């Protein structure tokens, strides 16, 4: 069933604007502490490992491992009427497993998923302003 109701889109803020601009450019940008070099997700003004202000936006590989997932059957928002059942998953980045991003599954079905499997980012335009980061199993 087609729907005219749009999905919720992120409301970028001062902290997150570089991340969303990166996604629009097809790059996964993550902050890195200028002092201890820890990767940090999501965007924050201070490093919570060494407490240093600031973060260097760094392009990462877009590769990670699947932590867990759920298949959403019940419709929670009319914007997803064409999608149910859809998969929401959590991926831990290879650069630092503490950087864990949510996304939807692309180019695979839930039946193929296994915890710990290698995943890679897929960039998908959601509006003229916003590109979302989704995930697909890595096929080397």
């Amino acid at each position, binding site marked *: 069933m087609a729907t005219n109701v749009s999905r*919720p889109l992120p409301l970028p803020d001062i902290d997150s604007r570089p991340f969303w601009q990166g996604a629009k450019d097809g790059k996964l940008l993550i902050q890195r502490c200028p002092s201890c070099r820890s990767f940090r997700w999501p965007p924050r003004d201070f490093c919570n490992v060494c407490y240093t202000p600031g973060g260097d936006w760094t392009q990462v590989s877009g590769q990670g491992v699947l932590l867990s997932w759920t298949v959403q059957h019940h419709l929670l928002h009319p914007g997803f009427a064409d999608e149910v059942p859809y998969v929401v998953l959590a991926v831990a980045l290879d650069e630092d497993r503490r950087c864990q991003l949510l996304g939807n599954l692309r180019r695979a079905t839930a039946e193929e998923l296994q915890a710990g499997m290698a995943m890679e980012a897929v960039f998908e335009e959601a509006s003229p302003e916003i590109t979302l980061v989704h995930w697909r199993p890595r096929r080397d």
Partner: protein
Amino acid sequence: MPSHPLRDRTAIVGVGYTEFSKNSGKTTLGLALEACYKAIGDAGLEVTDIDGVATYAVGDSTLSYVVADALGIEDTAYFLDHLGGGSASQSTIAAAAMAVHSGVATNVLCYRALNSRSGFRMGGTGREPRTAGDAQYQSPYGHLAPGQAVAMGARMHMERYGTTKDQLGAVAVTFRQHASMNERALMRTPITLDDYHASRMISDPLRLLDFCLESDGACAFIVTSAERARDLPQPPVYLSGVGYGPGRTLYSKAWMDPTESGARFMAPRLFGMAGVTPADIDVACIYDAFTYMVVVQMEDLGFCSKGEGGPFVASGALALGGSLPTNPHGGHLSEAYIHGYNHVLAAVEQLRGRAGPRQVEGAEVALVTGAPGGAGIALPPQCNGLVLRR
């Protein structure tokens, strides 16, 4: 070890509650007033005796000063409007205990009033999803309801420890059995494991019967000092321990593991303050927004070892007559969802010895918990709990 200064120094002396329903036909203010007046009356107090008002909400209820005004309270020495649902519930009573024991207030009224079925539903209807702050990394992917977060935690627990859907189902079946003896409960028809497995898939691996109800209603309590409590008409229910704990979120510095909850940090403090061990708990009212939350809390509160929560909840231990009678009122899964406060009500009722057919014989010590803290992917991390004794 010296006794904790807060142990048994305050007590719940009054309870009030409205009908629990799917459509109250009232505002949250109306619900709050009914529960609050009943609690004040139950405590044998007058409105003029109340000098503290505490509540919690997720933008879905009436603020404490509005309720205080409407009740006719003219001076509040203490007030609290805590942001949160299950992550805040029992902590408001803990705050009242601290306010009373410190002398900031004398008699504190705590309430939770919500139309979580007919109004704003946690399950995603009633208002537009948030897309600012951390929600900007979640909502656009259709990650919109707590059940999805918990489903991901449950899946990890199943993969790591072999927890089964039958074991999750056992929680739902047990609590429904308890609710069948509770005239307040919204869901009183007993269910079987087959009914559980036949229920609609919502957020795989969680089915409809893994989810709590969404309901309308209010509960209110009066907290006062142990000394004053002894002069009041109801048998005092002493606050032996109050506990808070952190959880991990998806965005914590430490590795977030949804097979563990903040309850494991809280439990030693909570039981230590109360001077009890898990073996001393006669009846438990465990926050059960989802069946999996009971599994993970049983482990993290120390009722069984890590990874054994599934077999433990399916062993019969949680049933009336089991080794740890749990949610004798039916819990959020089957009585109603008053965000942790109906669990306090159930515990007080047990310790007053007035739980009727679902009374745990000789119940002296009760544990009540709020949300487990974490235990899912992208959930509020805080947890909270109380140890109560008669």
